[in-house]
């Protein structure tokens, strides 16, 4: 009986010691983290201009922030955006990206390659301000995505494509696009049957869906008599 009680006391003791250790470690970590944040803030403040002006510097800065779980873009009100004016910067960039995507939507069905979007966004921003980089636009699009705007980044073959229409590109569509991307921006039904092992029906369904969404143009003019499906943003 005594032994059992002793055992229990010891257990409680160990638990208390364990908890104490854990909370001490947490305190130390919090202290370290807050020191690190402080350093990061000082760093950001000192290099404010570089961060604003230089896209590459900005990219590294973001990576550094991400590694300790600080998101300088998270809020428009926070210290970070006040310090750097980032909130406005990415908000503005997001709006410009949306406008560029909207303007081209009738032509490309709401899919645009990221490189092209960067060119268009910089055109919209004009020459008076520093050009933004691909990384900046990617950040802006990710932010838009979080708002549930239907903006998404897709990987099609070797390209990164911005999708500005809500809706899922299903797996079949994605495979069709990858095939088209690999052969220069177009594809025939028979190519897909061969390479993907799809039935003609399945191929037609995927191609028709892409056509209906305005993402593909048909070409019946080739001498082999086979209809080709072209994807403007992939050629």
């Amino acid at each position: 009986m005594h032994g059992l009680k002793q055992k229990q006391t010891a257990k409680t003791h160990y638990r208390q010691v364990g908890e104490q250790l854990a909370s001490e470690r947490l305190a130390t970590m919090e202290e370290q983290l807050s020191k690190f944040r402080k350093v990061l803030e000082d760093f950001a403040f000192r290099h404010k201009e570089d961060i604003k002006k230089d896209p590459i510097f900005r990219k590294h800065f973001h990576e550094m922030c991400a590694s300790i779980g600080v998101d300088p873009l998270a809020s428009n009100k926070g210290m970070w955006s006040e310090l750097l004016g980032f909130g406005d910067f990415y908000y503005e960039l997001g709006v410009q990206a949306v406008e560029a995507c909207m303007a081209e939507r009738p032509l490309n069905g709401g899919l645009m390659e990221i490189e092209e979007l960067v060119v268009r966004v910089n055109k919209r921003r004009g020459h008076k301000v520093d050009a933004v980089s691909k990384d900046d636009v990617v950040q802006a699009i990710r932010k838009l995505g979080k708002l549930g705007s239907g903006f998404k980044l897709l990987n099609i073959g070797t390209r990164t494509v911005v999708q500005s229409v809500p809706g899922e590109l299903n797996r079949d569509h994605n495979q069709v696009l990858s095939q088209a991307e690999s052969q220069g921006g177009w594809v025939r039904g028979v190519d897909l049957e061969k390479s993907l092992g799809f039935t003609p029906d399945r191929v037609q369904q995927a191609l028709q869906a892409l056509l209906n969404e305005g993402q593909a143009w048909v070409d019946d003019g080739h001498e082999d008599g086979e209809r080709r499906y072209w994807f403007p943003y992939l050629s």
Partner: protein
Amino acid sequence: MVDSSFFTSSSGGAGGAFEFPEIYSYPPFFTLQPVKETREKQLASWRDLIVKYARSERVFEFDPKTFALFENKAIQRALNETARQAIVENLTERGLCEKAGGGGGRVHLLWKSLSEWEAYLLDWAHRTGRREDVLTVDELCTSGELATEEFHGMTKGLMEKVLKRLEKQKKVMLFQGSDQDDQGVKFL
């Protein structure tokens, strides 16, 4: 990667002064698109191209069946009959095309509207002191002296159409010349 100017500006082209837009080398541009929204965009691009081409190359009239622009040999693509008709209809709806008359399928290409041509001709006659002069329609269209005028090279059919409208407004007088085929015109 699609160049940023893919659908809008011009680059490349097959020699000559006119620069063809990039979409002119895009094979599906020569197949009438089955999906409505895409087709509308396609027809708008054709309309834009034809008007710019006609203005630059002084094309006043064409036969849809044989119009050189409707075929791009470099990429081995040509529009079929249905597509040609759709484009002409689209131009006509917007007042950029009009049947040339005379039975065939030829159409007048109005990169300036008929009333713009009326104003242009009147202005020209006043500006160059041709009022009260008698000219032949043929002279107006082809005279080397008038090579810098925008109506130089206009087909006789279209010129007569414009002049008849001016005649109704009593701005010109038309009369049969000595040659059976040639009409005379006097700006009043």
